[in-house]
């Protein structure tokens, strides 16, 4: 039983980003970068399955610049066995990422692929579903529980009306939501030690996969500023302000 887990390097989730004045993107210089939080839950899930004797090998894969080695080391420190960086400095759309991951899946032949449900930079929430579509595998997105038994995965998902549990045969794709588990923290010493684990790098350019962007980003703009508010002194004034607001509402 082999698990492939995909991890992305993003601007740390605690940082409030700033839009560049020229509207070409967001400022990224000198910001703390880390593993996308959802991917940490995916790695944790993989490691727990291995610890429970349900998986023998966890391969962590990341696609991005050389610096993305960082997040692979974090995954290795958390318990992944081997790392693979598909190196590129190009800005990739999600379809390109899914195609690159399909290439890795074709080579590695995992039984289960785990990913975070979305990345906190572009907030797309695409790649797991796209990869499942490209491979023709079943998918369970937004997972809050995963069980494996008899070549099947039973996954509880967080959905619009509450929770839903799906069963599917392996190989399958599962994307992690935040309540899937509590990811372990790995300190710097563990990350240093993880450097002894195998970590391969391959150039995206040599893989023969078309990663040309399909969309043109015309501009990136900051959200509109909200008007200055006021502080009221008593619950009664607060209630009166609610009443005034309701008075202004149009029926919908």
């Amino acid at each position, binding site marked *: 039983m082999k698990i492939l887990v995909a991890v992305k390097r993003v601007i740390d989730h605690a940082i409030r*980003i700033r839009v560049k004045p020229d509207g070409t993107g967001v400022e990224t210089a000198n910001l703390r970068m880390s593993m996308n939080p959802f991917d940490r839950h995916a790695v944790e899930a993989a490691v727990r399955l291995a610890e429970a004797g349900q998986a023998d090998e966890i391969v962590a894969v990341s696609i991005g610049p050389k610096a993305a080695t960082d997040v692979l080391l974090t995954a290795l420190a958390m318990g992944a066995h081997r790392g693979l960086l598909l190196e590129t400095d190009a800005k990739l759309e999600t379809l390109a990422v899914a195609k690159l991951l399909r290439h890795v899946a074709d080579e590695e032949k995992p039984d289960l692929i785990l990913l975070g449900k979305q990345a906190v930079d572009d907030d797309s929430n695409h790649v797991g*579903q796209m990869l499942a579509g490209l491979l023709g595998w079943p998918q369970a997105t937004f997972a809050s529980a995963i069980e494996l038994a008899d070549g099947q995965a039973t996954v509880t998902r967080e959905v*619009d009306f*509450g929770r839903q549990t799906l069963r599917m045969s392996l190989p399958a794709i599962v994307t992690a939501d*935040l309540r899937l588990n509590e990811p372990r923290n790995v300190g710097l010493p563990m990350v240093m030690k993880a450097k002894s684990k195998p970590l391969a790098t391959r150039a995206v350019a040599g893989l023969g996969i078309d990663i040309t*962007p399909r969309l043109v980003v015309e*501009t990136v703009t900051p959200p509109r500023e909200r008007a200055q508010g006021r502080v009221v002194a008593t*619950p009664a004034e607060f209630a009166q302000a609610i009443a005034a*607001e309701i008075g*202004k509402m149009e029926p919908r």
Partner: protein
Amino acid sequence: MAVLVLADADLGRLTPATARIVAGAAELGPVDLLVDAAAAEEARSLAGVHRVLAAALPATADALAQLLAVLAEPYTHIVAAANASGRDVIPRLAALLDIQPVTDITAILGPTRFERPIYAGNATETVSDGQAKHVLSLRASAFAATVGENSAVVSNISPEVASATEVIAEVRTQSERPELSTAQIVVSGGIPLGDRFALVEDLAGKLGAAVGATRALVDAGHAPNDLQVGQTGKIVAPDLYVGLGISGALQHLAGIQGAKAIFAINTDAEAPLMKIADVALVADLFEAVPAVIAELDRLGIKR
């Protein structure tokens, strides 16, 4: 231009999101609405719908994406709601069609130009999509529902698609309250509520409002997951958002940026939600909320 919209429905009823995404999609061209047969009658009465395609829709994303891919041929745009169901199926469909999707759209600037938020709503991207087909999801909260009467033609179709996935259990949150992502008023509670979430429901009940919660309160097991508002939960855009004991972390604010008015009660005047609130009350919510309800009663407010 021809648009195929996947209706958002649950238990044989359209959700309020459907009329909103139909309104958005109608800006792109005549709308065919794909809907589960059980909701076909309701669907044909929606203004803005050109034709209803009624089918026994598969319950899981793999088969639904396959079905949409089969139907996709004559359409320039394929549209679903940017909620958990739409997010499950749209990217998969896009991959089957070899199309890069554009999702969580908050504004349609033209048939091939869209706005979508990134970085938890701290930036907005304007993208132009020159592909042969456009596979899109719309945030229902960003579009006003269609109004008016209609009796669109219904075409029954019997798709043959297979799923490799079986639904074995569902847990539904039972609530008297309106649907959160399209509600006109939302009252949400943060971690200090603990096991007293009923206080949020009391105020919401008075205002005819939907209830919401922060991730912290959901994680602590005091509110169901489908009430989480934020970057990774539901996106709301009510006329009035009332936050009780909520700090206003950037991931929470991501879910309420479309709110017209934000009101907040917090013991900490410096909490980020208090800083952006239109009306802020520095108080212990356990004392303030019952007093707010009493004053609303005195004013005769009841929705």
